[in-house]
């Protein structure tokens, strides 16, 4: 257990990512305060956490007593003041710079001076987020992957003003949680999304250009490279609207033409083809047929 970090706060804990990060921290033995403005979302997250650990017991990964102990370490609140006891607060709120800056400003007023702020942003600049508080030296990028309770990877990024000591403390905490941190510069998309978002757009443009259909592209990628999922299957999974949002986050910052949103993607979203969540994207999940077939 870290000498410096004992209690961890998670903002946006009613969301999928926040709830997952809370599970990671509690499972590693830390006291966790889950904060969200929506009480109903927090209640739902508690139920999901209980169900997750219940399955862990069923699978023999932990005992019932350990499950009870972990659940006891997870506290929930809609009062930001509850985070005053935290040594580390990780935000996983809406991916909007003004929202995150405002939150860090509020946390500044609540948390003690030593508290480290971690941001789970996947696209925004850590330095720009850190500008929302009076302790930019204590702000660290900590990008977990969905679902956080299962995925080991955490992209760790120092902002321009992040102190080495703070970065190391956050890094060590991540390791103590059983995660695998990698260090990246504070650049758009860090490593994962910087490589993935343009690649996914390229796959859409290959359809636009008539190179091949979605199924052929995905089959080629999976068979030729050994990937578990093709890019168009992945876009269907994360949502076509999410791919637009990611493109719109990257392109204005990078001016990389590959990051620009392909017209086909916009047309499909306009038509309500959002992927799995709407039942149809590049594939039709009712009839299991391919878009355009």
């Amino acid at each position, binding site marked *: 257990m870290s000498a410096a970090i004992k209690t961890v706060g998670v903002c946006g804990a009613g969301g999928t990512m926040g709830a997952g990060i809370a599970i990671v921290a509690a499972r590693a033995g830390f006291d966790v305060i889950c904060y969200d403005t929506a009480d109903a979302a927090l209640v739902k997250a508690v139920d999901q956490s209980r169900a997750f650990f219940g399955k862990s017991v069923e699978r023999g990964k932990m005992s019932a007593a350990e499950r009870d102990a972990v659940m006891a370490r997870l506290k929930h609140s809609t009062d930001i003041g509850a985070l005053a006891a935290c040594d580390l607060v990780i935000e996983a709120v809406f991916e909007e710079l003004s929202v995150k800056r405002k939150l860090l400003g509020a946390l500044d007023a609540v948390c003690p001076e030593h508290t480290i702020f971690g941001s789970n942003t996947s696209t925004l600049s850590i330095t720009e987020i850190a500008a929302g508080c009076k302790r930019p030296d204590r702000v660290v990028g900590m990008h977990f*992957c969905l679902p956080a309770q299962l*995925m*080991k*990877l955490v*992209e760790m990024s120092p902002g321009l003003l992040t102190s080495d000591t703070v970065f190391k403390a956050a890094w060590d905490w991540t390791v103590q949680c059983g995660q*695998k941190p*990698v*260090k*990246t*510069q504070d*650049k758009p998309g*860090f*490593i*994962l999304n*910087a*490589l*993935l978002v*343009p*690649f996914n757009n*390229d*796959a859409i443009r*290959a359809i636009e*250009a*008539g*190179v*091949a259909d979605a199924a*052929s*592209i995905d*089959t*080629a*990628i999976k*068979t*030729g*490279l*050994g*990937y*578990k*999922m093709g*890019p168009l299957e992945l876009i269907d999974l994360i949502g076509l609207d999410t791919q637009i949002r990611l493109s719109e986050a990257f392109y204005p910052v990078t001016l*990389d*033409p*590959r990051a620009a949103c392909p017209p086909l993607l916009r047309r499909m979203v306009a038509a309500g083809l959002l992927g799995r969540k709407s039942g149809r994207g590049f594939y039709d999940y009712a009839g299991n047929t391919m878009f355009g077939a």
Partner: protein
Amino acid sequence: MSYVIKQQGESRSFPPGDAFLAGAAARADIVVHLGTPVAADSSKKAVLVELDSEYLADHVADDDAAHANVVGFARFRNGTDAPSPLVELVRMRVTSAAAVASAKAMFESAGFTVVVCDDQAGRILDRLIRPKYNAALRFLDEGLATAADMDTTCKLGLGYPDGPIERVIRGGLGHHCDVTETLFRSYGTPAYAPPRMALAAKRRGEI
């Protein structure tokens, strides 16, 4: 399904000893050209032409109905890695659906996974993966992260069997340079321009 092979020189898709070479018949309705000039033969169900980085249209005019049964193909290889199970079939505007179907059935009966694409530079895989490898190599130059951390990120975050840096280096940076130079000539967009590390490797004479 039976096939005849006409070969000159070593095939990139089917290196010496490959089972596909041994499975060839003396006479068949499908002809597979491995490095040999293509001759129009309308009596065949399909006339297959092995491609490297060139277009199928480099071999036969793409508006000549006499070549309706000519189908291009390439078995995907990451540089010097062993060939993958993937065969990309290449069709042109005049290519008949029957010829594509015959070629697909033949390769599938030989145990390959087959996809069909148009006669465009890089087909599916090189068109999609080379810009990604270029980006990864550029990120490495710019100090975004170490090669190990980039590869780890892709393996843990995306479930890839290997990372982009280890794969492109394993396949050969000189080979990557050759492929991207061809793609860059075709598409003219910066994403395909050979990156510094690949250019330097080629100038050093590396494969």
